């Protein structure tokens, strides 16, 4: 297949104006790349914080972090990973890909797009700056449970303010995605032809628009409680800590699906390409996304079983029902692989790793959906195991699949295959070494969020193992960063259709795409326009694609 050169922008620009260009850009592709940098930066920070946690927990006794420091570190670890790594990562992929995949020129509101990006680092640094103030950073967990979060110094305010900023960013971004997907599609690109990745972005954005404002309200109430003397969460004055709980989890549960949908979208793009088949049951996948979106607003109190203040059977059954659409997705991915011709390139390896690991995480969740069982494992390391099997085993493996898959499109260069395979295996082993033992720790009654434990509780060995595993993960992530760094110095070598089997429109343009996205807009007659082009070209006798 012929390689179309990017239009010659060869004239080297002066450095200053290049910087200015990045700071003021409203091009969705550049903003997407900025999002990637932001996310990877916060991933590295959040990961290093995690290593601090694991180092402290390796042995009993507080050798490394004081309890006060530990509490700050786990709070910021969770907060950064969730709000500043994963969601912005979705916005990164979404920004770069959605307009390309639906054949648009840019996002619906390019300037609002730039604004939502720039709010992010501002919010993130606001949260992190808590480490510099007296009393330290916010230390009430990523869930900021009131009334505990009413205590604490100005680090808590910075956490609150930072999240208000980040929430605004996500809300604006989500509205932008929704309008773009509904209104900016190319001719022939009907809703049932857009790539599933776009459906994932659409579902995530719906969740964001409807859930984030509730969190914003809770954060504002918390600020008022801390500074204006309100008593929303103060039971001795007619308020109730349950107000925070309900508001937070009404947001919090949709939030966790916002964090996984990105991976579902990516994996649903990657698996067909490396199986040589179309996605099995496109309509089933779309239906599942939408069902999950709707159901996720009905399950929030499964985080509150142990409060003794919620309707247990109702929230138990809705939570169990949410595994049905999720389960369908697994069968759709397997169905796509079935009777295919699988190519185990790094994106496919990570996608398979995703399926294998997210399944465990999902089932871990179903354990806790039974209130009686949850009473025994709630707030133990079982929950920590669950969240990392879904968020690392699920989301991070999915994101890595996406990174390897679209890197050639974004930069025009492939990531090293060899390093990718090494990274995959080290990551898989390190991940299970770290987080599998946490199931057992949970069953043995080790509570989460503790800075220290006693030597006689039988938790030491498994904690040491988990710490070793965390360092193994760190090696794999370091390999990824090295891979990116090394690959960026290579000359461009990626063809338009980088994997030779692409389906969606981004593979019809150059790698990287020109500023205006498409020199020639291919016709869209099905959900796989680039496949159609390939078939057409083959029928024409091996002629090159335009």
């Amino acid at each position, binding site marked *: 297949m012929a390689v179309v050169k990017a239009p010659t922008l060869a004239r080297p620009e002066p450095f200053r104006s290049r910087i200015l260009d990045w700071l003021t850009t409203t091009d969705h592709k550049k903003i997407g790349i900025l999002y990637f940098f932001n996310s990877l930066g916060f991933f590295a920070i959040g990961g290093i914080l995690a290593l601090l946690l694991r180092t402290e927990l390796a042995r009993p006794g507080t050798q490394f972090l004081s309890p006060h420091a530990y509490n700050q570190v786990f709070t910021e670890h969770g907060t950064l990973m969730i709000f500043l790594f994963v969601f912005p990562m979705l916005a990164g992929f979404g920004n770069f890909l959605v307009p390309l995949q639906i*054949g*648009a*020129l840019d996002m*619906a*509101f390019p300037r609002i797009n730039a604004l939502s990006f720039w709010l992010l680092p501002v919010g993130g640094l606001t949260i992190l700056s808590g480490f510099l103030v007296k009393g330290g950073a916010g230390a009430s967990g990523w869930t900021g449970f009131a009334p505990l979060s009413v205590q604490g110094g100005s680090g808590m305010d910075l956490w609150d303010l930072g999240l208000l900023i980040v929430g605004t960013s996500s*809300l604006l971004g*989500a*509205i*932008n995605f*929704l*309008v773009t997907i*509904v*209104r*900016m599609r*190319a*001719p022939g690109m009907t809703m049932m032809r857009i790539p599933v990745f776009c459906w994932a972005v659409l579902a995530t954005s719906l969740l964001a*628009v*409807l*859930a*984030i*404002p*509730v969190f*914003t*309200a*809770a954060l*504002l*109430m918390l600020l*008022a409680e801390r500074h*204006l*003397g*309100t*008593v*929303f969460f*103060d039971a001795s*004055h*007619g*308020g*109730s800590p*349950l*107000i925070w709980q*309900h*508001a937070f989890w*009404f947001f919090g549960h949709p939030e966790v699906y916002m964090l996984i949908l990105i991976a579902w979208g990516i994996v649903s793009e990657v698996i067909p390409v490396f199986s040589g088949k179309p996605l099995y049951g496109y309509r089933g996948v779309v239906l599942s996304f939408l069902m999950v979106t709707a159901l996720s607003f009905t399950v929030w109190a499964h985080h509150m079983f142990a409060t003794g203040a919620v309707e247990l059977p109702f929230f138990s059954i809705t939570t169990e029902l949410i595994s049905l659409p999720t389960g369908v997705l697994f069968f759709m991915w397997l169905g796509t692989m079935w009777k295919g011709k699988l190519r185990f390139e790094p994106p496919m390896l990570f996608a398979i790793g995703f399926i294998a690991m997210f399944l465990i995480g999902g089932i871990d969740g179903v354990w806790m959906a039974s209130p009686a069982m949850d009473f025994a494992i709630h707030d133990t390391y079982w929950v920590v195991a669950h969240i990392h099997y879904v968020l690392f085993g699920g989301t991070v493996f999915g994101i890595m699949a996406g990174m390897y898959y679209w890197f050639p499109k974004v930069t025009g260069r492939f990531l090293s295959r060899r390093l990718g395979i090494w990274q995959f295996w080290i990551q898989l082993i390190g991940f299970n070494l770290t987080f599998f033992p946490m199931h057992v720790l949970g069953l043995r009654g080790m509570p989460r969020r503790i800075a220290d434990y006693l030597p006689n509780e039988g938790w030491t060995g498994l904690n040491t193992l988990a710490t070793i595993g965390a360092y193994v993960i760190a090696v794999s992530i370091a390999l990824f960063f090295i891979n990116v760094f090394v690959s960026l110095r290579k000359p461009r070598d990626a063809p338009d259709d980088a994997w030779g089997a692409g389906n969606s429109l981004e593979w019809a343009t150059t790698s990287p795409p020109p500023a*205006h*996205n*498409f*020199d*020639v*807009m291919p016709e869209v007659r099905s959900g796989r326009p680039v496949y159609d082009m390939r078939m057409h070209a083959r029928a024409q006798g091996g002629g090159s694609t335009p």
Partner: protein
Amino acid sequence: MSATELFTDERAVRGTSSPVMGMVLFVAGEALFFAALFGAYFSVRTSASVWPPKSIGVPELAVPSVLTVLLVTSSVVLQIGVAAVRSGRIDSFRNLLGLTILLGLCFLALQAYDYSQLTFGIRDGIYPSLFYVMTGLHMAHVAGGVVLLSLVMGQTTTGQISLQRHEPVEAATIYWHFVDIVWLGLFTAFYLSVR
């Protein structure tokens, strides 16, 4: 044919405009924002034995009723303005928009006056907490709405609004109506339903 030309026509026929759709989504989010606050209100209220608490007493109705009239009138006026713009009468739209902004400003001023007359402060318990935070956040939304309408006013006076291009008007109107509806909710929750 360049890519740009290829798309523009197709898109113009497709339903609502982007600003209007964006605003509808934004307002949907805002609705959940206030729903969360109302949720807090009702959960507190159902578990309280006396509501409003004895120390607060039943609030006066006079000023809040005027506030309600002001805001509802402003919505009606704005809607007439939208009808005007839709039939191309830009001048009369500008006047009606001016009146809407004026009514909004009156609302803000009168509510500030109402606050100054209250016998309780925000620190005086759960009822004042809910009252001040909910009406205060609503007030901020009214102020935001006034700013938004003023921006539209700016566009109108500089001739950027026309029969062909008036999405900003439609979008700002949706927002203003929403703010109005929230006030009706607050009026019911804090004044009407407690007598």
